[in-house]
């Protein structure tokens, strides 16, 4: 599973960073950055929570 973020949709709410800090960060503009595109299985539960928590629906999981 690959984590995909859409920085153009991002509104910098930071839900991803507080929920899965090993996978997401914010750049200087406060916009989402994926720091671990292929997180370990143990992280995936948090990442799946982020898909729902992100208020601008800017995070997705790709099957490749």
């Amino acid at each position: 599973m690959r984590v995909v973020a859409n920085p153009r949709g991002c509104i910098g709410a930071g839900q991803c960073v507080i929920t899965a800090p090993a996978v997401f960060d914010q750049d200087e503009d406060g916009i989402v950055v994926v720091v671990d595109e292929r997180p370990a299985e143990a992280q995936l539960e948090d990442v799946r929570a982020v898909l729902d928590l992100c208020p601008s629906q800017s995070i997705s999981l790709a099957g490749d």
Partner: protein
Amino acid sequence: MAAGETRVRGIHHREGMSNTAQLVDFPLRRPGQPYPPKQYADFRSREGLVWSHMPTGAKVWLVTKYDDVRAVLTDPRISSSPRHEGFPSVGRTGGVPNPDQVPGWFVALDPPDHDRFRKALIPEFTVRRIREMRPSIQEVVDHRVDGLLAAGSEADLVHDFTAAVPSLVISALLGVPHVDRDFFEARIRLLVTMSSTHDQRDQATREILRYLSRLILVKQKRPGDDLISVMLASGAMSLQEISGASMLLLIAGQETTANNMALGMVTLLLNPQWIGDERAVEELLRYYSVADMVALRVATDDVEIGGQLIRKGEGIVPLVAAANHDSSTFERADEFDPGRSARHHVAFGYGVHQCLGQHLVRAELDIAYRTIFERIPKLELAVPVEELAFKYDGVVFGLDSLPVRW
């Protein structure tokens, strides 16, 4: 299906104004404890949405189910702008200032207009930036607790602590001199009280904007490391827009945080087993959802939400406290239980307008609770909870005073 509606192709339609059988009056009188109004459970149990009657005479849709509230807050056909006909107002005479009166009041703008403001401000409210601010918030809180302890063994915690801390924090962040606290707090109070008249709101708005405009001119000459200077340097906003955006940040940073902090103190005093548990903050945000009716909306096209047809031009009030007490999303939703996972609450809204300052709020609440209960372990309510002065008339729910002793 409730009386007064017909169902066509699976969508509810209203039969028109003549049938008021299920029209409810809104806003409801708030209970103090427990919270929120018990009628919300009845509203959630109905099919579709709830057609209601506002003090202004307008009729609006109340949205009370969790999924429906999130759907309203993310639908691009539903607008946050009072420029659209049919936009609701919660107060008797007003509510959200019109962007024409307060340019820069960006919660009342839709994308893409809204985005220029949000983008200029996001860097100042990131998770990292707020983490860096924690020592200065701690300093503010410690100073207030020093003051409480020095003054004796009783206090009004609202006046001396829960209103003061967010006010000090947001004014330092914005670069507003704190000596002017009384000036802007008195005017903010008028703006967040539902029974204020149109003239009172209008005057308070003009006075705050005039004050901020003068301050902005000073910052232009002598920039600091505050938010007003950041907005000036961004080049993204006009001077008038910076005044309006500053007014919004001042009110948002003050009212919601202060009220949540005060209510949370009461809940923790009544449930001391959760004092010191960091999960209490998120659960208190969910439980009180003080900005219950702040996110007002209007449909700019016919749109179906939760099986209910909303016509173009009809007002919508998504009630976040009702959504956060929806038992299909939060088990035993009316219980205060920090042990649950409350992270998906919508107390900060959802969609592009989700609270910009949410990490600041979390930091302030966490530091305030941690510090006050550590340093004043004997803290207790000085009056029974039933006698507390709840803000029945506030746009934001909260407490007018909180007598405590130790």
